[in-house]
């Protein structure tokens, strides 16, 4: 009986693992199979033509990169402040756990709610119209919990001896933060940002009412009424039109590019995560 369970349970686990891997491989295979024929040099360098059935995705890719970069720049200082509050300044355990709960709640807010929130506050109330900056702010809010938690873990993993040694030298807390804590934990910020962005880059809901349009935008020229094109929204619109075979090819090509972008973000984060892992076991 015991021997049977020793065989059956690992086998079941293996089947689950295989299923998950097969899903991923199948998904990538289908997208690659249909998307690769659309890929060419001009697909990346040319702008969209004929309502998406011809041309490339230059401004869509550029728009998504702008949104990502804005989210990165906006979230980094906020996450740093939050993480320092949580891991350094707050001394009471209950206050720390309340802030932790806040971060997890923020992480659970559906992306469409962020979209509506941004629409009401920025587009309507501040009267910005659709703008790349609103998209950047909303994506920054969405990745904020991931970035902050990753940074907090990195700060917590910092050996206590460094803080003690710096304190023993007579350095102030602010000096210790700048000279010891942040230099040794910034990789947590990078990891969290990349992993957060790998999810947020593909989101359509937060940007569709606030930051992106389907056609007629190139480089942003300011903040008000300054939307960008973007990959997820491009895919969303083309998918509604995909009975046209020309559109279909472009749709799969765009999906493949978005997938590669997201993979790239995860891959860049990998060495930083491995480094954290190594140090934790050093």
């Amino acid at each position, binding site marked *: 009986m015991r021997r049977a369970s020793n065989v059956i349970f690992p086998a079941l686990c293996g089947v689950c693992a295989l299923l998950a891997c097969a899903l991923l491989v199948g998904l990538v295979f289908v997208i690659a199979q249909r998307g690769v024929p659309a890929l060419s040099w001009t697909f990346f360098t040319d702008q969209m033509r004929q309502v998406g059935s011809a041309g490339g995705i230059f401004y869509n890719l550029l728009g998504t990169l702008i949104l990502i970069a804005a989210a990165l720049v906006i979230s980094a200082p906020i996450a740093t402040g939050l993480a320092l509050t949580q891991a350094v300044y707050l*001394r009471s355990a209950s206050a720390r756990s309340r802030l932790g709960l806040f971060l997890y709640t923020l992480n659970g807010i559906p992306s469409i709610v962020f979209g509506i929130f941004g629409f009401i506050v920025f587009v309507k109330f501040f009267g910005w119209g659709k703008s790349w900056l609103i998209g950047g702010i909303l994506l920054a809010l969405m990745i904020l919990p991931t970035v902050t938690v990753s940074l907090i873990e990195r700060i917590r993993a910092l050996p206590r*001896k*460094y*803080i*003690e*040694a*710096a*304190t*023993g*030298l*007579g*350095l*102030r807390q602010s*000096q210790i933060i700048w*000279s*010891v804590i942040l230099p*040794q934990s910034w990789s947590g910020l990078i990891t969290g940002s990349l992993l957060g962005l790998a999810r947020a880059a593909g989101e359509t809901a937060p940007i569709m009412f606030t930051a992106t349009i389907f056609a007629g935008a190139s480089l942003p020229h300011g903040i008000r009424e300054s939307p960008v094109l973007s990959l997820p929204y491009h895919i969303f619109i083309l998918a509604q039109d995909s009975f046209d075979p020309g559109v279909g090819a472009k749709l799969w090509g765009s999906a493949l590019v978005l997938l590669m972008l997201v993979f790239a973000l995860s891959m860049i984060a990998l060495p930083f995560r491995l480094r954290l892992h190594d140090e934790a076991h050093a």
Partner: protein
Amino acid sequence: MMKLMHKEAESHDTTASADATFRVRNLNVTARGKTLLRDVNVSIAPRQVFGIIGPSGAGKSTFLRCLNRLTDLTPEIRVSGDVRFEGTSVRDPSVDPDALRARIGFLFQQPVVFPKSIIENVLFGVRRLRRLSRGVLAEVAERALREAALWNEVRDRLNDSALALSVGQQQRLCLARALASEPEAILMDEPTSALDPKSTQAIEELILKLKERHTIVLVTHNIGQARRVTDWLACICVRNGAGTVAETACCDALLENPQCQEVVEYLGSGSSLP
């Protein structure tokens, strides 16, 4: 003769407190309802090596950390009583703990070097505590490294990573880092317990040289080391569940003719062999 020296020890303890570098009166330390140190009274005269011995877990390190308020880093630790450094209470509200720690060097059991270059490690504290020009900083680094007897070994590779140094060199680098900001006193928490005999000897020679200008408080497990470098000794033992100073005397008197039963037992146990 020994009796006489003990008498001297007691009179030293009371009369020297006026010009003592550290004067500790009725120090009590608790953490989460447990008493770690009870009623500790010690006076540490300037420019001498004051050794602290005693069994593991008796609170020697905790005592040392009370002297420069490193205990502040542990929120659950409560300290009461009077600890004075150069006549000023270290817990007086007007005292800035960071400024206090800048005047008191601290050497840990394991050398703590930052993952930076040798020169950056030496100047880690001093360049943030004082505004000094590049030229002066270079002089400070050389002086500190010479004082820590490390200059000749690292002068050609000041910009190399400090992590590449041996553990013994790293501990001397930590000493240089503390010396760079010219502290009046240096607290050492078993500074040689992680080192090989040769590095230990180097540190002991440094301690003897440094006491010409600094007051040194040395926690050690090594009775031989206590005999070699300390002038005065306090033995912290556990009494009624909390650490307290069982006996204070000049080094030879305490080691050769301990008066207190706990000290006799501690010195008699295997760990105390030189």
